């Protein structure tokens, strides 16, 4: 994939291409050389900005950052890093855009949305993916009691997984008949959790609501109304009865189990097997101004990711202890351990093997695939956050402007060279994973055909459709 200007570009596509070539020109090289080589060339040298501050949200998938600090990987690379917990995703995003934070544990949708100007507009990049999977959907005890009896059971008397959102249909209807809305929570409008919760609901035939140009609530034509709450407050919000369920990362599903206020029903691994999760995000101009610093921080994080997955998870126990400190995730160690050590507890007493619940390094977890970025963009279009149709090229260009495998590869290849990570842990790829299955509704995804993919969904915007306050309208 190269940035060659072409006909049939949408306006935004052209803009992205122009901006990218301007960025390349700023590096003092000719744009025709392709972007990877340019940045990689300036990655060696001394760290330009050793004192760094990174933000994170109290979730177990910030682990690579905590481990890179506590195990001395940042220090090894000559970096003096402060890690600061942030109140919510909006504060974190503004911190990175405003420069208070040099980088952060981010939702994959955040750098994408910022770059295309949905929410705060800013040029952010994602040079590294932090992990695969790690989220789950939890329902309140009340709703669980309503659906429990109807669930198909296996021989051991436990519900057969994955649990489809279809079982919620009668519950939603009974809420409706009482004139009450059925509310669920997620953490941010462009969060993985929003798209996963919507995916699960839609796969079960429930409409999660559309966004329109002026409406950021996303509840137009909704059977289930979704609202935003910061992750650590979701259990308290569920307990308060404001919402009947939520989709969030760990440890906040296990927290509901421990507090006996809710029951996790499905993990995101069951919704989309090995789905890409958080990214490490930073400003594009930061990476341009401090290429050696960027490479150094990526190397430190990759080393931490390897440590987290080393020897079949032998280090996870120590990771749990580190994360349970009040300045990191801060939840009780047993709560964090409940999802980080290869198992996942659904109902109390129903603890199942979940080897792949948190993957930080294996399965090329750190590589920022363009196809992962495009999946998020397709979901933004599916639910109306992207108001009008975009051609395939727009998706490719946007993914390319934000996801930066060139930076990842420069850092990872250096580590391979130094013998720190094995060569086979770095993928040979053009950034597209090809045809991917493993979705709960059986629909396959191919990142190179975003518009074809959008046409496959029974619920979701189709080509030519747009959303107004009155609902979905076709041209």
């Amino acid at each position: 994939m190269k940035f060659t200007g072409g006909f049939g570009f949408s306006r935004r596509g052209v803009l992205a291409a122009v901006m990218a070539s301007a960025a390349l020109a700023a590096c003092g090289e000719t744009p025709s050389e392709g972007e990877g080589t340019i940045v990689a060339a300036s990655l060696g040298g001394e760290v330009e900005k050793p004192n760094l501050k990174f933000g994170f949200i109290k979730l177990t998938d910030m682990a690579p950052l905590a481990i890179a600090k506590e195990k001395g990987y940042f220090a090894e690379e000559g970096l003096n890093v402060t890690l600061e917990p942030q109140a919510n995703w909006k504060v974190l995003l503004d911190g990175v855009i405003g420069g208070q934070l040099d980088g952060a544990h981010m939702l994959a949708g955040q750098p994408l949305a910022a770059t295309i100007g949905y929410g705060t507009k800013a040029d952010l990049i994602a040079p590294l993916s932090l992990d695969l999977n790690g989220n789950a959907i939890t329902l309140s005890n009340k709703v669980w009691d309503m659906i429990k009896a109807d669930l198909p059971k296996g021989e051991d008397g436990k519900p057969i997984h994955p649990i489809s959102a279809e079982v919620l249909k009668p519950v939603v209807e009974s809420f409706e008949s009482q004139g009450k809305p059925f509310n669920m929570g997620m953490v941010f409008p462009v969060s993985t959790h929003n798209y996963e919760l919507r995916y699960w609901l839609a796969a079960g035939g429930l409409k999660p609501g559309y966004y329109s140009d002026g409406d950021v609530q996303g509840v137009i034509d909704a059977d289930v109304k979704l609202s935003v709450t910061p992750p650590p407050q979701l259990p308290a919000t569920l307990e308060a009865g404001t919402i009947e369920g939520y989709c969030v990362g760990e440890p906040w599903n296990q927290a509901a189990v421990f507090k006996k206020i809710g029951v996790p029903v499905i993990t995101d691994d069951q919704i989309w097997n090995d789905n890409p999760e958080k990214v490490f995000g930073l400003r594009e101009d930061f990476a341009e101004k401090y290429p050696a610093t960027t490479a150094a921080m990526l190397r430190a994080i990759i080393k931490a990711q390897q440590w987290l997955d080393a020897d079949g998870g032998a280090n996870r126990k120590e990771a749990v202890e580190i994360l349970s400190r009040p300045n990191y995730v801060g939840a009780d160690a047993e709560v964090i351990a409940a999802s980080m050590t290869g198992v996942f507890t659904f109902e109390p007493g129903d603890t199942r093997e979940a080897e792949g619940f948190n993957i930080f390094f294996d399965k090329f977890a750190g590589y920022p695939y363009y196809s992962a970025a495009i999946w998020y963009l397709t979901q933004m279009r599916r639910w109306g956050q992207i108001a009008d149709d975009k051609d395939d090229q727009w998706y490719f260009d946007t993914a390319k402007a934000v996801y930066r495998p060139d930076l990842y590869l420069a850092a990872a290849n250096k580590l391979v060279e130094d013998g720190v990570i094995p060569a086979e842990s770095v993928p040979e790829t053009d950034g597209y994973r090809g045809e991917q299955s493993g979705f709960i509704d059986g629909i396959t995804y191919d990142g190179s055909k975003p518009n074809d993919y959008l046409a496959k969904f029974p619920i979701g915007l189709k080509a030519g459709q747009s959303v107004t306050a009155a609902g979905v309208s076709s041209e």
Partner: protein
Amino acid sequence: MMATAFADTDPTETAPASVSAVASDPSATAASKAISQDEPEASPRLLMFRSVLSGLIWPITGIVAFLGLWAVLAPQVDTSLGTLPGPAEVTEAGFGLYEEFSAAKDAEAAFYAQQDANNAAAIAAGTPERVRDFTYAGPPTFLDQIITSLETVALGFFLATIFAVPIGLMAGLSTRFNAAINPLVQIMKPVSPLAWLPIVTMVISAMITSADPLLPKAFVISALVVMLCSLWPTLINTAVGTSSIDKDLLNVGKVLRLGWFDKLTKLVLPASLPYIFTGMRLSLGVGWMVLIAAEMLAQNPGLGKFVWDEFQNGSSQSLSRIMFAVIVIGLIGFLLDRGMMALQTLVSKNRTV
């Protein structure tokens, strides 16, 4: 005049230290008189001891009763994080925080020792470019957070005072100016810090663009929110104090043909100082209160952020740590108030017109 329910109504009556407060308390004096009549042979030292004792007995009873009720009732409240912690757990949390503090200090010392050793080795190896001079980047301790909070409220309070006093003086001296700003003051006064915060955040983020600003943005944002919420009592009290100057004094000033500056420094300021300080004392109280809310949302690493982070942690320790922070917040607020009160007394005593 603004007055809080528990504010001492007459500042000249009350002295800062509790012992002397007891001595000047009319009921306590009466009690000691009664004692001296009954037992004429008691020495004055014993009398003083008794009066102090009788002055302290009720406050102590109150605190003990509160602790008892807390210890009995807390275990009855069952939250999703376990039962509400009682006094013992909260004290334990305080010791835990102290241990964390000393552990953090050890880690910091170890970090610097290691850095010095590395630097010495680098110089010995002839690679002086490898010498590092990093400041320790560990998490802020509870004490660091208290200090940040005090600094923030000090800056906010300072800004509020230098803004509110001149405007208050003008409003007091000119009824027209007073009439002009009065509606604005009345509307702005009740606005919550939470409403100011987004506005201040956006403005400050736009104004401070340097990558490495002199003061951290979050710090400035919190301080400005404190200022916006706490300047009103000072402003109003200054205006009231200035406008209630004895008209005879002003007439004397006219007779003496004092210039406006002399009038201000020789008549107006001395006469209104007790009012200004009463206002400042109320302002500081308000500032300390809103600071916690501002820090929670602005991510300024102070006590408010400590409380919010602990709430987000939701661990079994969180509630007792939050309660400990609440007690510390209350104690610091009390000490700030007493400090201002002492200042106020001093000013009122020396500047009677």
